[in-house]
């Protein structure tokens, strides 16, 4: 880090971690909860905004970088994972968080998810899942439950929804968790764990869309939740156990569902680099010798 930098005073309360910009969300939207939770996470982990990057795609949820202090990027729809990965690889000292909607992550962005899981770069990915396309006003999402009527499923969806938790485990993610926008304390705990996890952490947050799904969502979810840290004997390192949680119906488990330490991407690059340095690295200009006839 440059020595010339005049350090800005670090925010000292959660609300000081907010940017001050007024969210465009509908009153009651679950995303407010996520924003509040994140500001508390920033505070609890004593983030220096200068070292924090929050990336997102496009969607209601993806407006979130605008509302928090730090470097932020509201990119394009579906590409938050590669963009966040690039930032982290290029500047490993930064805390890098990616956030977005269910459509952003599991429809247009699906292709990046398995690869981000398997690379295990040390970023945290928060999907604010509302089972709908909020910003574009109510179309089918990959997490919309079967039979759901939306503007693009006029007679009820005939597709099986994607299961983000199951998919993440199936893709070999090293940290998989779920939380709920209606429970700020829980979100704060889980997100902190995700950020502290070394490697890629995926957190699904059930964040109701009050406008296009309904205000009753908070109640419906609340009635079904159970907290995994209260479930006796739940072992998040047990993969098949985790799969069962992913497949559950009728109840919604919150907490760290699966966590498995495996080497972070940078671990691999560092080993290679050290090996090369040991061998001896020529001056860049001397590489020209490789091209001499």
């Amino acid at each position, binding site marked *: 880090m440059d020595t010339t930098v005049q350090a800005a005073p670090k925010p000292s309360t959660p609300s000081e971690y907010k940017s001050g910009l007024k969210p465009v969300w509908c009153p009651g939207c679950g995303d407010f909860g996520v924003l509040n939770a994140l500001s508390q996470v920033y505070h609890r982990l004593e983030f220096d905004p200068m070292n924090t990057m929050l990336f997102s795609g496009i969607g209601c949820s993806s407006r979130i970088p605008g509302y928090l202090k730090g470097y932020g990027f509201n990119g394009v729809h579906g590409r938050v994972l590669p963009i966040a990965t690039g930032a982290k690889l290029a500047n490993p000292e930064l805390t890098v968080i990616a956030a977005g909607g269910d459509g952003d992550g599991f429809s247009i962005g699906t292709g990046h998810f398995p690869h981000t899981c398997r690379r295990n770069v040390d970023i945290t990915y928060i999907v604010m899942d509302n089972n709908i396309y909020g910003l574009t006003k109510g179309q089918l999402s990959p997490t919309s439950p079967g039979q759901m009527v939306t503007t693009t499923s006029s007679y009820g969806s005939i597709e099986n929804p994607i299961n983000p938790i199951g998919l993440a485990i199936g893709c070999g993610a090293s940290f998989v968790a779920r939380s709920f926008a209606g429970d700020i304390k829980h979100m704060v705990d889980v997100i902190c764990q995700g950020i502290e996890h070394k490697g890629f952490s995926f957190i699904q947050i059930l964040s109701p869309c009050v406008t296009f799904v309904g205000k009753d969502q908070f109640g419906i979810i609340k009635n079904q939740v159970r907290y995994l840290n209260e479930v006796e004997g739940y072992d998040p390192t047990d993969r098949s156990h985790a799969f069962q949680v992913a497949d559950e119906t009728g109840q919604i488990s919150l907490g760290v569902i699966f966590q498995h330490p495996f080497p972070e991407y940078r671990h691999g690059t560092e080993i290679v680099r050290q090996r090369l340095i040991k061998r001896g690295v020529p001056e860049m200009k001397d590489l*020209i010798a490789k091209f001499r006839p």
Partner: protein
Amino acid sequence: MGGDELNLGMVGSGGDGVMVTGETLVNAAAKKGMKCLMLKSFGPQIRGGEASCKIRMSSKKVSAPPDKLDVLLALNWNDYKRFGIELELSDGGVVIEDGHEGDEEPERSIVGAQPAKIYRIPLTEMAKETAGTKLAKNMVALGVLSGLFDLPDKEMQAALRKTFSRKSVEIIDNNIKAYEAGKSYAEDNLQVPSSMKLVIDESMLDKRVVMTGNDAAAYGALLAGCSFFAGYPITPSSEIMEWLSNHMPAYGGTMIQTEDEIAAMGMVIGASLAGAKAMTATSGPGISLMIELIGLASIAEIPCVIVNAQRVGPSTGIPTKSEQSDLLQACFGTHGDAPKVVIAPADVADCFDVMREAFFISEKYQLPVVVLSDGFIAQCKSSIHEPDLDKIRPWERARPKADEVSPADYKRYEITPSGVTWMSIPGKDPHLYRAAGIEHNEAGDPTSDFAEHERMNEKRYRKLEGVAAEVNFMRHYGPDDASLGVIGWGSSKGPIREAVEILNAQGLAVKALIPQVLYPLDTRQVYQFFESLDKLLVVELSYSKQFLNLLKAQLDLPDGTLHYGRSGGRPLAVYEMVEQFRKLLD
């Protein structure tokens, strides 16, 4: 032919070692300080099928691929059928084939002139005799060429050793024997008119390196300070990432192969935001996938370099052949008004300099720079003058200075006269900001105000004015006052330049202009070029006249401007250009 250059073609089946032979020749030429370039061509088989190559070597400048051949080495006439149209023999050219004098004549239907002489040489037999394997027949042939045309023996042997440097001493020795046998055979039994011998101008002895355009681009990028590469393999650009895979990690940089081109471009954007000089390389299909994110880099003003080694399109097209048909996409392929810079290397050596300029422009002006290379440049193995490593001066992105703007007052997208605004770097500057692909105000927050949008368009396009004025990157050939001029771009430069030189030598006043920053075009310079002209010819390898259209979009062409264009698939030839010039002169 002969005298100051040699044009040589080879064709054979898989296992005949056509490419190895060619590369050995290129190395030998380079060792002797000669310029040389080699064009490869493969049959449809994925591996091990028939192949051909063409080599042009000279002590003087060699800027175009070989046109017609002085010598054709046919290891296999059946394979010649497939490539014949690419292997045209010139008047007075000779043919070397595997066989015995007196054997039944093989079926030959040579494209071009009738050979002045056909040498039948028992290459396979000699290979078996000397090296104990017919696999060495290409080395016998190499020896024959060496003897016949008086190629520099020491360099040939050294190059041959280099070629086999990973093999056992025995194998090397056997190949040397085969080579020597061929050479003696030629010296003892054959002769070509001395006019065909290659005259090596020792005064031209020079520091040579052997590179492809992809090598030069990769190395140039590294030296320009590129520390992040993300990409997805695609012909003919993959060698850039392959080279960087090898060489970047040691210097702390990151080269990552992504799941697709979209992810590659996404990672480049993320890395650049985080402060790295970042790039990707691909070809047409990959660019098509990156289009959306290139637009993002444009509106969010994120520096990045995108190499497109063009191939024949559209769609998958012909992956192994070159064309100049991604030009309009590079300039105008994004939706919305999205300024970017398009810059084209004109030859292999140039790739090195162009990468330097590309990073300079993208970092200084904070926009995406597309480097439009092509399959010919990208993969042409060439002996070139060693690049000037001292010309590289990595440019540092302008960051908000702590004593000039406080973090609270910093506006990432402040409207400035140059269009460029300081860009802070996470982890380094306390000047926080939020970048956005959505239209934004000066602070970076979303806006839907049309007046603000207009101002931001103005800001972003103003940067192009700076680029056009600052980056003087255009090649001129021929006398300034010529009345007949040609304008072309990219790898068409080679044949255009040689044609101009040939005609100038014949006393004809023709000249050529090769703009390299194609968008934004420095129109002043181009208009100056037009001044002396009675006739202008626009030359390109695109069926739909993309370059002509790009010029028309940026300036007014002289009345009666003519156009010569065709599809790609084979490089422009010098004689083709000369012919076009002559037509105009008539």
